[in-house]
């Protein structure tokens, strides 16, 4: 069964450094998402992306965050100047239809654990 893959599985970065998290969504999916989960807390929506542009973003997704689909397969999340509080699991997800269409659910990757020192 096709799956969403994320790399790296664990990223350790110094505070203030830039980090890029990578995702390969399911190949025929058109909608892409990033979520984060701080240790012990709930999964939080960051951003959704469709047709090469951001379709929705949360309050968490401020100017230090950006997303890109640089080619036909990868979907990346860049954090420009990392802060300690950016430490979390970051999950990528993809779906064939918009999230509010119930029969086109999101499929999640296994996440990247980002540790900011």
């Amino acid at each position, binding site marked *: 069964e096709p799956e969403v893959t994320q790399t790296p599985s664990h990223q350790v970065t110094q505070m203030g450094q830039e980090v890029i998290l990578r995702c390969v969504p399911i190949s025929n999916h058109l909608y892409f998402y990033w979520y984060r989960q701080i240790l012990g807390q709930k999964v939080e929506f960051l951003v959704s992306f469709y047709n090469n542009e951001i379709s929705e973003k949360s309050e968490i997704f401020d100017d230090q965050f950006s997303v890109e689909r640089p080619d036909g397969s990868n979907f990346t999340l860049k954090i420009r100047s990392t802060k300690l509080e950016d430490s979390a699991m970051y999950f990528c997800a993809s779906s064939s239809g918009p999230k509010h269409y119930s029969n086109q659910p*999101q499929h*999640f990757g296994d996440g990247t*654990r980002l540790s900011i020192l």
Partner: protein
Amino acid sequence: TQLLEQSPQFLSIQEGENLTVYCNSSSVFSSLQWYRQEPGEGPVLLVTVVTGGEVKKLKRLTFQFGDARKDSSLHITAAQTGDTGLYLCAGTDSGTYKYIFGTGTRLKVLA
């Protein structure tokens, strides 16, 4: 702020017992999903419920969507140790179209 509150937050039971996990909100959801998440992995979709009052069964798991589409429940019959994990509900708020996750229920089934 939309909230999906899950209860209980933690649940530890013996193998063979039955349990129910609840997911409640003051908002109406156009659809609701249940996921299971293992440590170090992403959420894995178990089911989607759409229609108010809908009941779906997945082997020993029974999912119900409330009539008003504001709440849902997950019932597990004869729990097994393999059911251990974090159970998450998530859904699309029908007013804002925001997709939000519940607070989670951490289930541990003891042999």
